[in-house]
């Protein structure tokens, strides 16, 4: 669809649906859309390529103390989409009287508004391979190119209206050596820059060369460890799942219960906030509330706030901080420390350097224990110098240790780790975080 057409369609649908409401009804509408070019690479050649135009409209209808919701695909034809949306509204109207009363129902936010549109310079899908492929010839590269516009919208019957539209691209890739050693990188942004892209590839090629040395096998045990920012972002992502959600704290499912109820603390070097100041992630949630620009979650090791949706706030008599209903992190930022990047290897001395982690899961959530694998460029370091890559190892350790008593230093520079997941639709989130130096980290297999 043409630039502006989705926003216009959303406004038309919102106007028509809200006009159709009865006096006792409240309606929240959320739009999620994208116009995407995907290209999947294997061995620096094209495995699959295609285009996806996909927008959906979520309707949540509240009548009295009952609510139900519905989501429909949008065709882009305003008349047809209005017809489908009205049919869904009527379906919800018919169903709601049959549902249970919900004592914790929250009306949508009233009278809030925002509009953020950022247009970038994206590659034309028909010619993008001319830009992407030349710098990777002769390299074994596997990865995914995703590029195009992403939309988010919200409107409700109490007068709130938000629009967020951005152009984004990301080449998320792995380079593979003949010995099957791999490095991982993402080149992402809104304005394509060929020179930056080629520099990203060149830097990754150089990192891959570091893996040429023979693999060093280490035994399971406790190791002095540095985890680079991409790995730290993976660890922080676990806090969106039985983590910093207030509801999960209240229902006993959160790994942070030991901090909330047992008075435990993490290292004074560890601070984490929800921070939208970069403007790359919409601040409004699914009922039109706007999160604070910055919310301290853990300050110097103390649990200061959890993520509280208005629904949870109502249920437990709390004050909302306008988290989305699922109470996951949307824009986490971990505070930097004082360890200069140039001093990382010297400070590590002897131990393991982990660039990336893989396939994380709680192994004992009530004790904060997370398991996963080391992956990609991970090295054995001795005398402050890289000795060679290590074979992938399983880790199983608690964040009460690696963000707690074993956290020795935090690097001074933050990296932006974009969310490149494309389940259902392209993600918009990003994590800002540094690397961490640990006195000890448990490698188990």
């Amino acid at each position, binding site marked *: 669809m043409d630039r502006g057409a989705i926003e216009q369609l959303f406004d038309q649908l919102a106007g028509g649906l809200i006009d159709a409401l009865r006096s006792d009804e409240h309606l929240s509408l959320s739009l999620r859309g994208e116009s995407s070019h995907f290209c999947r690479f294997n061995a620096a050649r094209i495995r699959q390529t295609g*285009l996806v135009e996909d927008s959906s409209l979520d309707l949540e209808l509240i009548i009295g103390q009952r609510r139900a919701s519905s989501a429909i695909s949008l065709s882009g034809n305003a008349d047809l989409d209005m017809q489908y949306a009205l049919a869904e509204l009527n379906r919800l109207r018919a169903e709601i009287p049959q549902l249970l009363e919900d004592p914790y129902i929250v009306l949508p936010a009233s009278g809030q508004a925002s509009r953020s549109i950022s247009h970038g310079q994206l590659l034309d899908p028909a010619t993008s391979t001319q830009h992407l492929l030349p710098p990777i010839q002769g390299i074994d590269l596997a990865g995914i190119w995703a590029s195009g516009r992403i939309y988010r919208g919200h409107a409700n019957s109490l007068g709130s209206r938000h629009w967020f539209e951005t152009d984004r691209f990301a080449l998320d890739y792995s380079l593979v050596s003949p010995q099957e050693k791999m490095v991982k990188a993402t080149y992402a942004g809104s304005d394509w820059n060929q020179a930056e892209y080629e520099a990203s590839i060149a830097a990754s090629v150089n990192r891959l060369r570091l893996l040429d040395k023979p693999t060093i096998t280490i035994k399971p045990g406790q190791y002095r460890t540095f985890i680079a920012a991409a790995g730290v972002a993976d660890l922080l992502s676990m806090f969106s799942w039985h983590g910093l959600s207030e509801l999960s704290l209240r229902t006993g*499912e959160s790994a942070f219960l030991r901090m909330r109820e047992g008075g435990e603390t993490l290292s004074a070097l560890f601070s984490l906030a929800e921070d939208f100041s970069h403007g790359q992630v919409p601040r409004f949630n699914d009922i039109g509330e706007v999160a604070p620009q910055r919310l301290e979650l853990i300050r110097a090791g103390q649990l200061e706030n959890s993520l509280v949706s208005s629904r949870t706030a109502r249920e437990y008599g709390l004050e909302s901080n306008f988290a989305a209903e699922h109470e996951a992190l949307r824009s986490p930022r971990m505070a930097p420390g004082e360890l200069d990047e140039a001093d990382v290897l010297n400070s590590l001395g002897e131990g393991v350097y982990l660039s990336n982690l893989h396939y994380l*899961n709680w192994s004992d959530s*009530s004790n904060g224990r997370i398991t996963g694998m080391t992956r990609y460029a991970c090295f054995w370091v001795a005398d402050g110098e890289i000795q060679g890559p290590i074979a992938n190892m399983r880790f199983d350790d608690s964040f009460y240790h690696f963000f707690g008593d074993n956290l020795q230093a935090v690097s001074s520079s933050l990296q932006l780790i974009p969310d490149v997941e494309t389940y259902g639709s392209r993600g918009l989130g990003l994590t800002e975080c540094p690397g961490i130096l640990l006195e000890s980290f448990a490698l188990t297999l």
Partner: protein
Amino acid sequence: MDLAGILDRLDVNADWVGLRYVDDHSTWRWVRDGRPQLNQHNRSRGIMVEVLAEGQFAYAASANLDPAAVQQAAVKATAIARAASAHAVYHFSSDVRPPASGSYISPIEQSADSLSPAELNQLLVKSCASLKVSDKVVATHAMLRRVNSQHQFVSSNGSNIEQQFFILSSASQAIAQDGPVVQQRSVNGMFARSWQAGFEILDEDQHLARCRQAGEQAVELLSAEDCPNTSMDLLLAPDQMLLQIHESVGHPLEIDRILGDERNYAGWSFVRPEDFGRLRYGSELMNITFDPEVPGQLASYRFDCTGNPTQRQYIIKDGILQRGLGGLESQQRSGLPGVANVRACSWNRPPIDRMANLNLEPGDSSLEDMIGSVEKGVLMESNRSWSIDDYRNKFQFGCEYARLIENGRLTRTLRNPNYRGISSSFWNSLKAVGNRDSFAVFGVPNCGKGEPNQVIRVGHASPPCLFADVEVFGGDG
């Protein structure tokens, strides 16, 4: 949807064109602690146009079903296929999209509309009440998801396929707490109870009895000992075998993974092309079938998304690797024997190699015989945690509930049971397989793979299985 009519009117300069229409209507209902959390309908529908030009496939997907929009999508797809052709991983012909006609419909007895939203919510409220067996149960969750998914596929070389899937999933979970100790117990793990079925599978009395047992076991776990840290025999119940099969057999045998397509995301495989026909994957008791023909299993179908008709196949026979999980494209690229398993999660994602129903065939041991044969071991049930490396070698899985086996008898309950191992050596330690009476069918409705990412439904069936000398361990508490 007159898909054939739209195809007839397309004017596009391609060697082959296919249209895949998906109309997916799902309903989620979730009650927590007896109070409604979600009553949500999702309807996603659209068309994927797939074209083959100069040996390269490309796709364009849109929810705009108007023939003019489909025509535009076909033209765009053809343009990017031609642009990509010079850089293709492999040049295909339409042989990998064989002409096929036919239909499939899930076998259901009691339609999804036979229970009203009010009745369904009441069932979930009763489920929560049954899960809450004591004040120590601090949270209860009861969920139902039903899906009605209609798929149509037509192609320029004569395919015309209609498949309709009716799916019902349920999940019931109790969280119990006693001071700092928190334990969860669900009915067979979250959403393992997923089938192509109607409400005939939800007998209320049986369902509520299972909820009550889950609540009781959650409370029981609060005072249980932690699983010991040692190596011993491990007996896995079918609702954990499903995960073991999924992660350490299914994924490593996907041929697109072996060919490297997935290396940037979920990873590669410890299995190499030369292993087929030779590799001793497990002990002689290990027999794995790809079987999309099991009535009611979650990933049953008649044709994959390329039109390839299904057939039951042995993937591993008597412990020896026979064939991979790869469709016609992967078979052509690799020269390996495969199956009809190229599937897309919806209209907006391209089809790739996926598991379907991947089952471990029954052996001849009764559950009692297996328990009786163990001097010191542990029985683990219902998956709680899962993680495996990018080659699908080093895994660590956790379960909700365990019982110690001592001198041939089940004794104490254990909490936080975990185990870890390496896929091939683990399967080679398989020393007994349950018989047909102990065989159980479950599903995994949320298998993630691919770039762009796709979540798809997979089925796994297995009897309980006994493994020798496995590293097991408990939690920190």
